[in-house]
């Protein structure tokens, strides 16, 4: 018989009576040790999200890949991957797309699923791109004002107003 958690032969046969239902387990010595240790520990703490992410990256990336990945910045909000994985908070809705390759396995780790099946906004999914574009335009406007490029700032202001106006008209 093979271990239920890996491919090694199962030599430990455990019957767990502590849960709601009787649980029969067939494990190799290593997996059995791990299982029994987590059973006995006083306070089993759930792994943190950043902990999960770091482990996932360690397994999949070389140090150099990781360095390059850390330096990647979202074109919309400007957050770097490094900033995200340290703070554990994303910078804007577009990060879910921009860092999708790294986030998707994390989401499966955390939730066991990767597809939303619940409620949707009643008005239907609106033009997400133009909304995201607003985030970028406002950020750019702040930058050009700091650089005292008022001509560009005026252009940006008009673009922002146009998109905001479209959002208002279909309410």
């Amino acid at each position, binding site marked *: 018989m093979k271990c239920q958690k890996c491919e090694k032969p199962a030599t430990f046969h455990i019957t767990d009576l502590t849960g709601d239902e009787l649980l029969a387990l067939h494990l190799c010595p290593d997996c059995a040790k791990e299982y029994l240790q987590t059973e006995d520990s006083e306070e089993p703490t759930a792994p943190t999200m950043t902990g999960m992410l770091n482990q996932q990256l360690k397994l999949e990336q070389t140090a150099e890949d990781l360095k390059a990945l850390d330096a990647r910045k979202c074109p919309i909000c400007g957050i770097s991957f490094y900033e995200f994985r340290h703070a554990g908070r994303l910078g804007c809705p577009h990060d879910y797309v921009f860092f999708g390759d790294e986030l998707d396995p994390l989401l499966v780790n955390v939730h066991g699923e990767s597809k939303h099946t619940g409620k949707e906004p009643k008005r239907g999914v609106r033009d997400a791109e133009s909304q995201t574009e607003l985030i970028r335009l406002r950020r750019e406007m702040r930058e050009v004002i700091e650089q005292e490029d008022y001509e560009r700032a005026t252009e940006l202001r008009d673009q922002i107003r146009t998109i905001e106006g479209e*959002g208002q008209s279909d309410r």
Partner: protein
Amino acid sequence: MLIDDMASRCGEWLRGSGPESDIVMSSRIRLARNLADYPFIQRCTDIDRANIESTVRERLERSESLKDLTFINVADLELIDRQFLVERQLISREHANSDGARAVAIDSNERCSLMVNEEDHLRIQVMKSGFDLEGAWKQIDSLDDSIEEQLTYAFNPNLGYLTACPTNVGTGMRVSVLVHLPALVITKQIEKVFRSLQRINLVVRGLYGEGSQAMGDFYQVSNQVTLGKTEAELVQQVGDVVPVVIDYERKARDFLINEQQNDLFDRVSRAYGTLQNARQISSEETMFLLSRVRMGINLGLIGDLEIPKINQLFIHTQPAHLQKLYQSTLDTDERNVERAKYLKGQLKLSREGDPDQN
């Protein structure tokens, strides 16, 4: 001012009624939502935060179905008023202690609260007294619809509602039930119950959320996962397990009554005695003793007190509430003296008010 009006009342979750209210204090659901056209809070400038706050307020104030909500500017509140809202579970500790433009909108029954600029732009919450998750879901679902008529949420068809932390993405929903489990604590079975809950992906926290200590034997049971399940499935996941926890607690209470009656009576009577006679008492000790008295009432060991009264004492003896009632700031030692006075007075009143008292 609104907050001072609130101080003398109890709020929805302490009403002490509703299904299974001897063990379940309240049922609560929260939804995390973000506006599509702003960065998440961490990347917001001060101007962004102020704009989010004013946009949300303006849009929601023009909605007919949201007329009952009153906006409170949390950034302008004194520390004690922010603490007061935390004690009432209307804002989170993080929301109270953070910086920058932020607000909360509350309805007159204190059933709904809407935090603006917490970890997400919007944290919508509905509370019900007792075990009533279905009712809470119905209410928050329609509240969410009314808000969404006014604002464009960050939403992606594959990932659902987009949140600042990937652990909330999808439904953005947390379903929590606040349970009172003194007998499982006394019989030392509580850890075992927690472990079995964790194994089925549920989280157990103390009264005031993440990282808070379990005060007065109150625990919150809630879902961990938010993606890949419908809202109804999440309500059911928590809703199915709470009756099992209730059943364990009742069995533990039966055991105490049948096997350790003297010990149990002694614990309850000593707790009641201390609350009536102490000259100074901390908020932790008060919670601990009120918890025992609460169980004593539910088991019929104390005849001259009612659950709503105990719930009132729970909330009014918390530091910010006590100071609101006293209408002055007090340091810890002063609070301990005033708390003991308040308890003594209230318990005397309720005993004298009861004609059956012998």
